[in-house]
């Protein structure tokens, strides 16, 4: 049954391109509605997807993209609305039904069992026999076929958890293809990939498209939409705002459609007055519990009045570096000097002391470290500064002072909704981040260490946050920013450091950097003659 459907879809997709032709549509969603309590996540959403195309869906966080895809993949059932797959009305009430209808999904967080081999992960749920050994034989031959056809090579006997994310993603794609998916949904597939892995993924997607597979790409990266999709649909506040042919639209138009107003790229303002070094890191090494160096003998400086951006694929030591600079992790070797305070293995410091040194910290993971999600905004706004005497005139917290403080900062940083009693968990990502920035920047820090300043933040709020960081820099604060978004690094940094496997592989002024080279450095593939030695060469060049 599902084979029949997908075959028709393929042929139609190759035959005709007109979206008005009903038979050419691989997917058609009609009037999809879905509410979670009072929140209407999808409002009368219509979506036609032409078979054999790559169709992008863009929208801000909370625009309803993921909900829509979850409905299509049977994770939730729509309250109202119809789903047509290749012209036939289908009811998708479970993932099983979706798989049967020929839909495969690559989730943002991979649905893989880390301890399993690649082969076991792919077979799981689609085993051809009650015995693993029999299923494995059959699966292996099918997978070899798929790997050759689409360039999806992964070692089947490898333990999945040990593979790099790019390969894990390939496992996810293979999983869908093994289940004979003719429609592939990818949810933010490039968020965790290096630029070169992204290129590889796009090659695979193109190969799949040529074989007639229909691909739905959900992303907030407009550059990728422009690079690979044929059509694009824009969602805003749970509604489908517009459908465009990619060739007939532009990044600017899409951004405007997503946000609902004109958006400007944050200005690339160069630093005006750079002062003396206020953060000095010398030969810093941080070890894991197994004594593996996570940060490996690095040295750099951050001067007052400049932003130093640390680029790198996540997991290359940036998080540990931030932890050490904020006193959360101890220094294992080497030393750090911040505002004249020397931090060495023998003279450790802690986050409380960091605050007295006028160090501010905006952590990478705001849910784990920046906020207590069950706290209301008033409590979050004093988190970490709860001992300040101005909040504690006597034995108890002065609720009135805290409330006023919260009101003032919410107004200053445009945190919405402007309600001091709102629970942090009920705020959007952008507003949570603004709340944290308000708390930290208001203390007029001389150093700010910030991780992923705009992760999971809406485009509108990104602009605002970038402005705030630049303003803070211009007051003479030394800012160290870790980000996996190269665009952000390029926009804000005065100097750029690239980290790879705990080492600094490049340290350069922004003017010397371009996105392509940075991308290669992040993957440690800059020197094409010899990748391994290349890193050391670049590294020593960067330090000199």
């Amino acid at each position, binding site marked *: 049954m599902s084979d029949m459907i997908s075959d028709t879809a393929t042929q139609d997709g190759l035959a005709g391109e007109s979206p008005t032709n009903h038979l050419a549509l691989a997917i058609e969603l009609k009037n999809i509605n879905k509410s*979670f309590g009072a929140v209407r996540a999808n409002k009368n959403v219509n979506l036609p997807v032409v078979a054999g195309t790559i169709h992008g869906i863009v929208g801000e966080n909370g625009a309803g993209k993921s909900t829509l895809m979850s409905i299509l*993949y049977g*994770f*939730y059932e729509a309250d109202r609305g119809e789903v047509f797959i290749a012209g036939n009305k289908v009811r998708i009430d*479970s*993932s*099983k039904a*979706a*798989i*049967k209808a020929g839909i495969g*999904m690559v*989730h943002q967080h991979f*649905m*893989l*069992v*880390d*301890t*399993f081999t690649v082969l*076991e*992960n792919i*077979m*799981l*749920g*689609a*085993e051809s*026999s*009650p*015995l*693993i*050994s029999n*299923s494995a034989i059959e699966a292996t031959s099918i997978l070899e076929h798929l790997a050759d056809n689409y360039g999806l090579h992964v070692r089947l006997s490898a333990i999945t958890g040990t593979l790099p994310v790019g390969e894990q993603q390939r496992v996810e794609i293979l*999983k869908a293809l093994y289940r004979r998916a003719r429609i592939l949904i990818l949810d933010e597939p490039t968020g965790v990939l290096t630029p070169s892995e992204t290129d590889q993924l796009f090659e695979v997607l193109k190969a799949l498209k040529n074989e007639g597979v229909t691909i739905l790409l959900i992303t907030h990266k407009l550059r990728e939409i422009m690079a690979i999709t044929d059509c694009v649909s824009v969602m805003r506040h749970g509604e489908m705002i517009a459908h465009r042919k990619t060739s007939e639209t532009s990044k600017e138009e899409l951004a405007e459609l997503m946000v609902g107003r004109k958006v400007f790229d944050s200005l690339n303002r160069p630093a005006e007055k750079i002062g003396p070094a206020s953060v000095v890191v010398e030969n810093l090494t941080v070890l894991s519990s197994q004594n593996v160096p996570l940060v490996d003998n690095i040295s750099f400086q951050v001067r007052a009045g400049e932003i130093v951006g640390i680029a790198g694929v996540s997991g290359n030591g940036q998080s540990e570096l931030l932890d050490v600079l904020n006193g959360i992790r101890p220094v294992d070797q080497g030393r750090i000097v911040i505002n004249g305070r020397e931090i060495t293995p023998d003279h450790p410091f802690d986050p409380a002391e960091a605050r007295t040194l006028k160090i501010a910290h905006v952590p990478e993971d705001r849910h784990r470290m920046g906020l207590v999600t069950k706290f209301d905004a008033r409590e979050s706004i004093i988190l970490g500064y709860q001992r300040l005497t101005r909040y504690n005139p006597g034995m108890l917290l002065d609720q009135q002072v805290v409330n006023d403080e919260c009101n003032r900062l919410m107004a200053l940083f445009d945190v919405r909704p402007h309600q001091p009693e709102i629970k942090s968990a009920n705020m959007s990502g952008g507003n949570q981040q603004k709340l944290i920035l308000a708390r930290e920047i208001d203390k007029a820090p001389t150093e700010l260490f910030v991780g992923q300043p705009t992760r999971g933040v809406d485009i509108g709020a990104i602009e605002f946050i970038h402005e705030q960081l630049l303003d803070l820099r211009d007051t003479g604060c030394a800012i160290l920013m870790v980000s996996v978004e190269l665009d952000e690094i390029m926009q804000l940094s005065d100097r750029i450091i690239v980290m790879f496997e705990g080492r600094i592989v490049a340290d350069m002024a922004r003017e010397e950097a371009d996105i392509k080279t940075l991308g290669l450095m992040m993957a440690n593939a800059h020197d094409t003659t010899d990748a391994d030695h290349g890193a050391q060469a670049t590294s020593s060049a960067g330090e000199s």
Partner: protein
Amino acid sequence: MEDTFLFVVLTLDAMLRVATPLILCAMAGLFSERSGIVDISLEGKMLVAAFTSATVAALTGSPWLALFAGVSMATMMSLIHGFACITHNGNQVVSGVAINIIASGLTAVLGNAWFHRGGQTPSLPSEARFMPIELPFAEAAGSIPIIGTIYKEMISGHNGLVYVAIAMVLITWWVIYRTRFGLRLRAVGENPQAVDTAGISVAWLRYRAVLICGLLTGIAGTYLAIAQNASFVRDMTAGQGYIALAALIFGKWKPWHALGACLMFGLLDAVAIRMQGVSVQLIGEMPVQLIQTMPYILTVVLLAGFIGKAIAPKAIGIPYVKER
């Protein structure tokens, strides 16, 4: 020399007998925990099964009916655990503790009310019990030195359920590592979302695991009451369910490793029994209490980190709720 050898063989023989409920319980726990459901109610289920089987054996005189009844009751308790933890996403430890308390209280109260013997059930005649089985040629082989002695004294002459327990380890290993069901079971304990998105029901998988767990604890409890002993005694499981759980953790949730841990606990217990009244040079008579506490001391010491890091199934103890 001859004496020492016989002593060792007889101790190992006792080890198997004592370890049997531990092995069955550890395998029971393995199924449950590999599916992501923490089960500290092994103890309670075993106790309920012991009481039920002893009661049914006393009333009907049939060990087979007793086994069936014991297994049924333990499975019922498992279903309650499953209903609380799988269907209603309850806290698995709380549910387990509740089952243990109910089991301990209910068996004592009902035992007292029905038999008026302070919670004990009537002593069973041998027809109403599972009795040791002589393996073929045991008598004849006994005359062959060493191998024959081992065969006669250690391998042969056990209760049928002892052999069942050993076979169960092999079966568990085969099911977990060689079958489709095992693959899915392991997956659901590591990443239930992966299982759900692969189109398999997480709840049904976990229910099956919990049912198998009930079945095996039922056999273990029955063994205690009508095979190893001849009646139910109040709280007769005496923490063996917890020891089995500890063995499962030492065994890193793997069948053969868990078997090894169970045998080690069994051996310590067997030595304790053997050493009763035995006088050792220099020390004099060994205080039995000291040896009897060994398994518990060892549990604490080993769990405190001597066995290396035991990596539990990643999703263990976390109810599976679809996000949002």
